[in-house]
């Protein structure tokens, strides 16, 4: 049986943001932009959607007098990603193993 995949994560950029944050825990906006290859506008829009869903936490701060936007996964986001991955895995298990 295959559980539904979280529709919020069925977007390339939102899934990439979540997967990146699963590895590094916390990162700044520019690193995310470099890592995902997204435009600033699109990245900002997708971060807002993930933030509204409570999956990531955004902190706006300063470092050496420059604005710095830090993003990290919330516990709800970690759970959402883990569930997404588990459902994905069960999908492939069902399709490959019968």
């Amino acid at each position, binding site marked *: 049986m295959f559980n539904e*995949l979280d*529709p919020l*994560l*069925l*977007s*390339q*950029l*939102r*899934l*990439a943001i979540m*997967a*990146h944050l*699963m*590895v*590094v*825990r*916390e*990162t*700044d906006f520019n*690193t995310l932009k470099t*890592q*995902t290859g*997204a*435009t600033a*506008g*699109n990245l900002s*829009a*997708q971060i807002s959607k993930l933030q509204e869903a409570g999956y990531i936490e955004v902190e706006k701060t300063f*470092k*050496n007098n*420059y604005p*710095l936007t*830090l993003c990290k996964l919330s516990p709800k986001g970690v759970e959402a990603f883990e569930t*997404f*991955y588990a459902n*994905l895995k069960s*999908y*492939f298990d069902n399709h490959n193993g019968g």
Partner: protein
Amino acid sequence: MENDEKVLNPEESLRVIRETIDLAKNTIRENGFHFLLWGWLVVFACVADYYLDVVLQHPRHFMAWISMTVIGVPAAIIYEWRRDKKHPASSNTVREWYGRVWMAFGISLFIVIVLAVRAQVSPVPYILVLVGFATFISGTLLRFTPLLVGSAAMWAGALICLFLNYQEQLLVQAAATVVGYLIPGYLLNVQARNKHV
């Protein structure tokens, strides 16, 4: 503006996760600066201690170790400060653990040296055990096999010290440091250049 709303299928989702995680791993790579800095300082201190003690029979042969701390600690702090200024970066779990391992190592090292001096035994094998431990964890965190090989060399060096006097132990420590710090340090630099840390 395109808002990237194309719905992924399971195959595409898995590909996005795999590619992103592979890329993210590059952000946790370290270069070899600290291994080379401390590696050369330890090798120099071991050889200097041996030379002062065995050849010159100088009563304060251990002074070589103080010079290592005086040079190494400020150099390491300045390097980290400049790197942090240049790349106001992102913290991440692996970097955090990496830093904590070496902080714990520093504290343990200090205590072990105090205990060994107090007990009037050579600290060298105990230092090698601690260095091997910290190097092993670093190698695991960075997924870098030369550091794992290096940690094995440190532990082997510690066991070999069982059969040697203090002066001979210094030469074992120097050799273990070449394998455990210097070779992985140079290889980490090569990797950092190729992967653009």
